[in-house]
């Protein structure tokens, strides 16, 4: 009996061992199938949704360009890290005067990817070119700059009329990118810099091909050859990733989030979220409306419903602060930073008490962009349910742009926008020259100016928080959610780090 039991036990053991080996072999097989064929070749293929048209980073502010050219090909003078520390870029060192009005940059002894040495003249040319950039955000960094001069062959001094945080931070952004003057004529198709990669080929509406820059001063990129394939159809991009034809979609727009979740791609691939490519979504109320009325409208905005409508909890945060999570003055929705939280009962009581139901309101919304008409589908019924006499003016993009950006006085009472997180866009010196939102606040503008001249990071953060507080309490620009950048990477592709130069994906950090 005992012998029989032993025999059965042995057989079971063998069977178990065989099953384990078989399962292991299967597992190894599936792992082998999952690994990208590019890993062995030290290559990777990424996906872009848009062709930038031009690579001229001085004149273009298109995300399609800003994702790939800065940091990878053209470097700024310095890099600002996530923790606030500053690292050398084209400038190997720098000194800042005590009054924060003089910046002296020591230029790194290196060459551009074409082999030409980086000179003080190139730096002066680059800064002056950016100072004259038609892109307001780039040129804004130089508002306080009064002089850019050569000290010696490797030293450049920048003089400011007043301390400027915008200038210093700009030197770590696109405003501070350094290019050779000799390549000015080719910047639109073949920009050159000191970055870890050089552009080997760019075929419009098809691909970017990057090759490691042999003269790069830093650590060589782990993946030497990178192809960025332009696939405008988002679903096709996801299909390509799932089929193993590409290794990453570093930027996945909001219209694909639900599909991504339903297809469980966030489980099959590495999902990353990062704030830089994100943007705030906010309501804009007509400042001519009574402030109590604006506050009451703001109380009908259900941020959570709006966020839930995208079907991807990881994609956005509710917020009442006009900022992205990487900005020091950002705060998610909470009692302290939301002066007018969602409160339908309170709104209904105020409407009844103050007779706002008799005030006709117009909600301008887009009709031909489905995901941008979604906010109106949520907000308008909520406002009507609260008792507002609101009508929805659904118009196509052309008419919307005309109405919103050129209508003076404002031709709308409420609209929803998504866009750049730069708070300076709401600064207004003169009410007659207010921007498209028509928001104008001397107090807000002064707080921003105070932040710009702040001598310390702490003071800067405090002033920016103050300005954000003024903005939210005025209830003209009413932040709703902060959408994040979302990317998917092959599980074998590691090393993604949050962008440091604007939204640029630093490809040299990625490795198999």
């Amino acid at each position, binding site marked *: 009996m005992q012998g029989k039991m032993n025999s059965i036990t042995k057989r079971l053991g063998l069977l178990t061992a065989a099953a384990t080996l078989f399962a292991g072999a299967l597992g190894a097989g599936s792992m082998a199938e999952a690994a990208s064929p590019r890993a062995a070749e030290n290559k990777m293929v990424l996906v872009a949704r848009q062709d930038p048209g031009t690579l001229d980073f001085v004149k273009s502010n298109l995300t399609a360009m800003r994702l790939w050219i800065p940091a990878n090909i053209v470097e700024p003078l310095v890099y600002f890290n996530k923790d606030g520390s500053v690292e050398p870029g084209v400038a190997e060192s720098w000194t800042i005067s005590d009054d924060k009005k003089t910046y002296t940059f020591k230029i790194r002894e290196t060459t551009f990817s074409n082999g030409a040495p980086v000179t003080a003249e190139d730096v002066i040319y680059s800064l002056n070119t950016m100072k004259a950039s038609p892109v307001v955000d780039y040129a804004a960094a130089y508002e306080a700059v009064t002089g850019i001069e050569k000290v010696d062959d490797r030293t450049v001094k920048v003089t400011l009329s007043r301390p400027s945080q915008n200038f210093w931070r700009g030197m770590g952004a696109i405003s501070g990118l350094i290019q050779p003057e000799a390549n000015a004529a080719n910047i639109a198709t073949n920009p050159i810099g000191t970055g870890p990669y050089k552009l080997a080929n760019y075929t419009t509406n098809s691909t970017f091909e990057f090759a490691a820059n042999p003269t790069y001063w830093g650590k060589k990129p782990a993946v030497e050859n990178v192809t960025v394939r332009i696939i405008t159809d988002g*679903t096709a991009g996801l299909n390509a990733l799932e089929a193993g034809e590409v290794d990453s979609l570093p930027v996945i727009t909001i*219209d694909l989030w*639900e*599909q991504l979740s*339903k*297809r469980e791609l966030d489980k099959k691939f590495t999902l990353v979220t990062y704030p830089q490519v994100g943007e705030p979504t906010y309501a804009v109320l007509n400042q001519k409306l009574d402030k109590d009325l604006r506050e009451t409208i703001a109380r009908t905005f259900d941020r959570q*419903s709006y966020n*839930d*409508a995208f*079907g991807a909890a990881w994609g956005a945060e509710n917020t009442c602060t006009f900022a992205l999570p990487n900005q020091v003055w950002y705060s998610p929705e909470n009692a302290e930073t939301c002066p007018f939280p969602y409160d339908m009962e309170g709104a209904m009581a105020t409407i009844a008490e103050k007779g706002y139901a008799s005030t006709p309101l117009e909600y301008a919304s*887009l*009709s*031909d*962009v*489905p*995901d941008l*008409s*979604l906010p*109106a*589908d*949520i907000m*308008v*019924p909520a406002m009507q*349910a609260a008792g507002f006499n609101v009508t*929805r*003016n*659904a*118009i*196509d993009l*052309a*008419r919307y742009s005309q109405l919103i950006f050129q209508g003076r006085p404002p031709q709308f009472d409420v609209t929803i926008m998504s866009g750049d997180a730069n708070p300076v866009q709401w600064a207004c010196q003169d009410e007659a020259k207010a921007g498209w939102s028509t928001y104008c606040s001397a107090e807000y503008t002064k707080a921003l100016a105070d932040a710009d001249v702040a001598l310390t990071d702490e003071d800067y953060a405090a002033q920016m928080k103050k300005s954000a507080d003024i903005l939210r309490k005025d209830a003209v620009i009413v932040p709703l959610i902060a959408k994040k950048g979302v990317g998917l990477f092959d599980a074998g592709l590691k090393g993604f780090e949050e962008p440091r130069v604007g939204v640029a994906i630093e490809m040299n950090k990625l490795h198999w």
Partner: protein
Amino acid sequence: MMTMSKSTHAPAPASGSAGPGVPISPPARKSRRRLPRNASLILGLILTTIFLTVALVSFFYLPSNPNIPVIRNRLLPAGTPGHWLGTDVLGRDIIAQLMVGARTSILVGAGGATLSLILGTIAGLAAAASGKITDEAISRGADILLSIPGMVTALVLAATMGSGALTTILALTAFFTPSFTRVIRSAAMGVLNEDFITAAKLYGRGKIFVLARHVLPNIAGVMIVQFTLYFAAGILTEAGLSYLGVGVHRPSISWGLMLNEAQQQVGVSSPLAIWPGLAIVLMVLGLNLLGDGLRDVLDPKLARRAS
């Protein structure tokens, strides 16, 4: 030259009416006889009646408000109790939206076809009955209008007037009227050459009396058939315009708008696009079958062939 067949074109309220005890003309009797055997007509009538009934019911009853988002119910699948065709991305009931969509699509399609019918009939009759100069002016004007793509007209109107049901009806009217004008002119000219018209003129009847009393009743069949076909085309065009975002918009709902909203979710929830698509197909099929069936019944030549 007055033959029996010609007498079918004669103004015949007495012979055409079919009240109890009133003798009916042989062709009308044949039409009535063919009626039950005309499968196209019956199927078309059933489909059209169903959608018209749904549209009418939507004025009095809806399972829920199709414009109020209920986020917790978003993207419920078909078969969910209380939401038998599911819900959309904002948790709005699909059946309620289809019901309101039927109302709008039918209103816009019928509105465009009706206005075109009225204007096209006036212009077509004027071209047929007036002199050569008027005829040439109207005919060439119609040719010019026909050479402009209808979608372009619609987009221009939407851009200048703003999108909405009224704009869509006007766009359809601009699109369909030239075609109606040509058809009506052609049909009216055929009738105006008949002997009984000459007799009426000799009897001293005025031009407008002849057109109203003798021509119109004799081209009514053509008008009805054309109306049903353009009604269907109107629904399709409205769906196309709303899909492009230049048709109706919320709080109005049309099947085209539902398709527009569903396109973002096609990879996530395909039925969202299937239901309004199916509604459009069935409604248009119903109207086309109805038009074909009516043509079979009302066309005198087909009637003669059948007899």
